[in-house]
C-alpha cells in the first residue's frame, strides 16, 4: 500500500479489520452508539481495545479519529488553537472538534494520562448536552448526530494520582476488556501472524506464564499484541526462543534477573 495523506475526518476504514468478539461487546457498543452514549474501554495494554475501535468504525462506517493522550496533552490540543498565517491569526480545529463537526468516532486512548483541564471539554460532550465549548472562540459546537466519543483507560498500572474521577467515569458506558480465553487467543495469534496452531498454542501458554508473574516482579504480562509480534517473527524464520526474547521478554521488562527467568521459561517450552 502506498503512503497517502488524508484529512483525519476522511479516515474511513475500508477493509474489515480482523476482530474476534470475546463477549457481547459489539452489540453493546452498537446500542450505545445508537443512543448517543459515550463509551469507556477498560483493560490491560495490547488486549485489543484499539483493534476493537477500528472494527467498530468499519462496522458503523464512520471515520475514526484517534488521539493518544500523554501527560502534556491540553484542552487546546483537542479543541484547536490560533495559528499565525501570513500576519494574521487563524483558527485551526483540533482533532476533537473535527470529529464533533464531521460526525466521526473520536477515540481518546489512555485518557487518564491527559491533563486535568481536558476534562472540561470532555464532560459536556459526554452527557446528553453533546456540545463542545470553544472557549477561545466563545462558541459552542453541538455535535453531529453521528459523532461518538470513546475513551480508554487501563486501571491496572496507573497511579492513584491518575485515577479517573467519578464525575468523569459515571458519564460513560463501560466495556471491560481482558485477554481472550486460551482457545480464542491461540486462534487470534495463529490468524494474525500466520503461524500454525500448535505453535500459537505454545505462545499462548508462554503468555500465561508471564501473566502468572504479574505482581511478583512484572507490572504486566505479555499481551496478545506481543504474541502476534513474536508469531510474525517466527513465521519469518526466527527461532521461537529468540523471537520470544526479542518480541516478548525484552518488551515487558528491563530487569536482568527477570529477563533471565523469562528466558528460562521460553526455552523450557520450545
Amino acid at each position, binding site marked *: 500500500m502506498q503512503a497517502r495523506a488524508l484529512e483525519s475526518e476522511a479516515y474511513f476504514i475500508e477493509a474489515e479489520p480482523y476482530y474476534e468478539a470475546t463477549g457481547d461487546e459489539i452489540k453493546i457498543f452498537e446500542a450505545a452508539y445508537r443512543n448517543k452514549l459515550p463509551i469507556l474501554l477498560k483493560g490491560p495494554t495490547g488486549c485489543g481495545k484499539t483493534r476493537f475501535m477500528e472494527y467498530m468504525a468499519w462496522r458503523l462506517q464512520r471515520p475514526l479519529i484517534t488521539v493518544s493522550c500523554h501527560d502534556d496533552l491540553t484542552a487546546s490540543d483537542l479543541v484547536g*488553537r*490560533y495559528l499565525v498565517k501570513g*500576519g494574521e491569526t487563524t483558527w485551526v480545529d483540533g482533532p476533537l472538534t473535527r470529529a464533533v463537526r464531521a460526525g466521526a468516532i473520536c477515540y481518546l486512548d489512555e485518557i487518564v494520562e491527559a491533563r486535568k483541564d481536558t476534562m472540561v471539554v470532555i464532560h459536556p460532550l459526554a452527557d446528553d448536552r453533546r456540545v463542545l465549548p470553544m472557549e477561545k472562540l466563545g462558541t459552542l459546537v453541538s455535535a453531529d448526530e453521528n459523532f461518538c466519543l470513546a475513551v480508554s483507560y487501563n486501571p491496572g498500572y496507573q497511579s492513584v494520582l491518575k485515577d479517573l474521577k467519578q464525575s468523569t467515569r459515571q458519564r460513560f458506558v463501560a466495556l471491560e476488556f481482558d485477554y481472550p480465553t*486460551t482457545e480464542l487467543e491461540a486462534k487470534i495469534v495463529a490468524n494474525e501472524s500466520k503461524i500454525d496452531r500448535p505453535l500459537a498454542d505454545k505462545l499462548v501458554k508462554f503468555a500465561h506464564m508471564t501473566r502468572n*508473574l504479574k505482581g*511478583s516482579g512484572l507490572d504486566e504480562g505479555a499481551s496478545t499484541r506481543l504474541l502476534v509480534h513474536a508469531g510474525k517473527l517466527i513465521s519469518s524464520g526466527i527461532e521461537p526462543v529468540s523471537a520470544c526474547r526479542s518480541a516478548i521478554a525484552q518488551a515487558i521488562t528491563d530487569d536482568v*534477573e527477570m529477563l*533471565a527467568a523469562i528466558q*528460562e521459561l521460553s526455552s523450557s517450552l520450545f
Partner: protein
Amino acid sequence: MADNAPLTLEQILKPLETWLEVEFTFIHVTEIAESLARLTREEQDFFLTWTRRISTTNIQIAYQFAVRATAGLMHMDQRVIEAWALHAMDTYDRAGLRPAMQVIEDVENFVHLSHAHAEGAVFEDFSGILLTFVHGLSGRQLKIAQGDAPYTDSETLFLPAVVATMEKAKDNFTLCKAMVAFQWAQTRFGSFRINFNDAFGAYEDQELALKQFHGLETLRLEACLQRELPGLAREMQRLKQTLAENEAIPNIWQRFAELLAAPGATVNDSLRMLTDAYQAPLAPTTCYQGELRPDAVTACMTKRTEHEKMHLRIKLAQMLEEMQKQQTEAPREAPPKIDVKEHQDSPNEIPSFDIMLDDMPVAPPEGVKQLLTSVYLDFGEIPPEYLVAAGDGDYDLTQFEDQGKNPDDVWQGTYHEEGATFYPEWDHGRQHYRKNWCVMREKDVTPVHDDFVPQTLQKYSGLIKHLHRTFEAMRDEDKLFKRQAAGDEVDIDALVEALADARDGREMSDRLFMHMHRAERNVAVMFMVDMSGSTKGWINDAERESLVLLCETLERLGDRYAIYGFSGNTRKRCEIYRIKHFDERYDDMVRARISGIRPQDYTRMGFAIRHLTKVLNAIEAKTRLLITLSDGKPDDYFDGYRSAYGIEDTRQALIEAKRTGVHPFCITIDKEGQKYLPHMYGAAQYVIIDEVRKLPLKVADIYRRLTT
C-alpha cells in the same frame, strides 16, 4: 614481578597467628602455612583472605576452613569454595557453632560431588531466577529454600547450597532448573495425592518401596514434563546422556516408562505398579529427581489442608453475607446450595473455577481462586466438605495465623520472632551480609496529648511566619512562558512586534506563542529520627521542635512526607516507631505522637535505613529523600555494632538505598561527625549543626535548599 612472588612461610605464618589468635587458642598453624606456601600468590591470597574473613565470625570455623581448604580443595573452583565458606557462616549465624562445623566437615560431600575443576552453580546465584521461573509455571505459589538435598514438602522447593554434578556452570544451572521443574511437577501433577502410610505400610522394606515408588513417579513426571515443557525435557535428556544415566535400564523399567507415559496416568497407576516394581531390580535414578520425603510432605499438607478448608469456608461465608446485603428481597430461609464448576480450556491445564450458588455462576474473588487452585492440586477436585460456608462460631482464623502479635510481647514470656521482619546486615569483616540478622518490628509512638506543640508554635511564631512565606514561594506554580515557538495561545505582544518588524522589512520572529508551563514538585520525603538513649534531654526537645516546624512548612509546600523514629537494642530488638506515615494527615494524633517521642535504646542504623527505604520506595514520586536526624555515629549495645562495623553496615545500607534511587541526607549535631559522615553519606550529603539549640531553626532551611 616481585609483586606476584608467592609469600614465604614467614609471611604467611604471621597474619595467620594474629587472625586465629594463636596466643590464646593454641591453634597450630604451621602445617597450614606450609601447605599454603606451596601455592601461587593468587591462590595464597584467596585462601588467606577467606580465612581472615571467617575469623571475624568465628576462629574455630576459620581454623577448620584453613585446614580443610589447604588439604583438599586447593584446585577447586573458587566460587564453590566461597559458597561453602559463606554457607558455613550463615549456618553459624542461624544455628550456632556445631551445625556450622558440620558444614565445614561435610566438605567431603562437596568434593566427591565435584569434578576436579567443577564450576558449581551456587544457590545464591540461581535461586532468584529459578524462583521467578517457578512462579511463571502454573499452580500454587511455591517458595525456594536452601536444604540439605533436593526435595519438596509441597510448598517449598529445597535445593542444595551448591550443585556441582556437571562440569560446566551452565549445565549445573540447567540441572538446578530441572530439579525445580521436577519438584514443581510433583505438586502440579499430583504426586502427593496418596496416603503415604497406607501406601507403604504393607511393604516389609518400606525404604525400598519408597525408592521404587519414587522411581515410578519419576518416569510418570518425566512424561508429563515432556508434554508440558518439551524444551526443558530435551535439556533433561541431554543431562542424563552426559551422565550416562540412560544406559542399561532394565527391561521391566522400560515397560513401566511406556505405561506411565500415557497422558491419563496418575499417581495411582504408579502405586499399582509398585507391587511389580518392588520385586524388580532397583529403579534407575536421575540427577534431578532428588529425594521423596513423605514425612515432610505429610506434615506440610496436613497443616495446609486444614488451613485452606477453614479459609475457604470463611471466604464463602463472607461472600454470601456480601450478597445478602445487596439483595433487597426478604432473607431466604435456607442458605443457597454452593457448588463449583470447573472449566478447562485444554486437558493439560489447571481448570479455572466458577462458584455456583443455586446453579447461578458467581465469579470468585482473586483470593478464593488461588485457594481453589491449591485445593485442586492437593486432591484433584474440590471435595464437597470444603464448600460449606462457615457458621457464625467458626470465624476464628487466628489459630492459623502468625501475624498480628503484639510486638511488646516479645520480651514477656516466651521469646518469639514471629510477626517480625528480618533484615540482613553487612559484616565488613566477612565482607558479606549476615542473612536475616536484624529482627525488626514497627510500633506506634505512644501519643502524648500535652501542650508541647502549641508551645513550640508560640516559641517560634516569627520563624514560622518566615518559613511559610519562603515555602509558599516554592510551591509548584504554573508559569506562563512568553515568546515560544509553539504553545496554546498566540502571544499578541510578540505578534504585534513581529508584524511591525515585517512591515519594516526586517526578519519576522517565529516565537509568537505563549506556553503554560506546569512545574510539578513531585517529592516524597522520609524523616528518620534518632530515638536512641543519648538524645535524652534537650537533643530530644530540639528534635521534636524541628519536627513540628517541618510539618508546619511541609503542609504549606504540599510535599508528601513521613516521619519514623528508630532505635535498637541488639539485633534481636530493632524497632521502628511510626510517627506519621505517608498517607496520614498532619492532625492532632500526629502532633501528639511528635510530642510523645521519647529516647529509647541505642543507635542501630542499618536496618532502619533498609526498612524505611523500602517504605519510601513504595511511594510513587519523582524524587525520594531519606533524611536522617541524628546525634552520633551508629552504636549498639553488646553485639559489636559499633565503630567500624556499625559505620560500614550503615554505609552499605545507604549504598543500597542510593541504588534504588533514594537520596539519603544526614543532619547531625555530632561535632565528631566530620570523621565518619563523608565515608557514610558522601562528601556533600550531610550537615553538621554545632549548636543543638539551632537545630529547629536550621532543619526547615536545609530542607528548602535540598529540594530546590
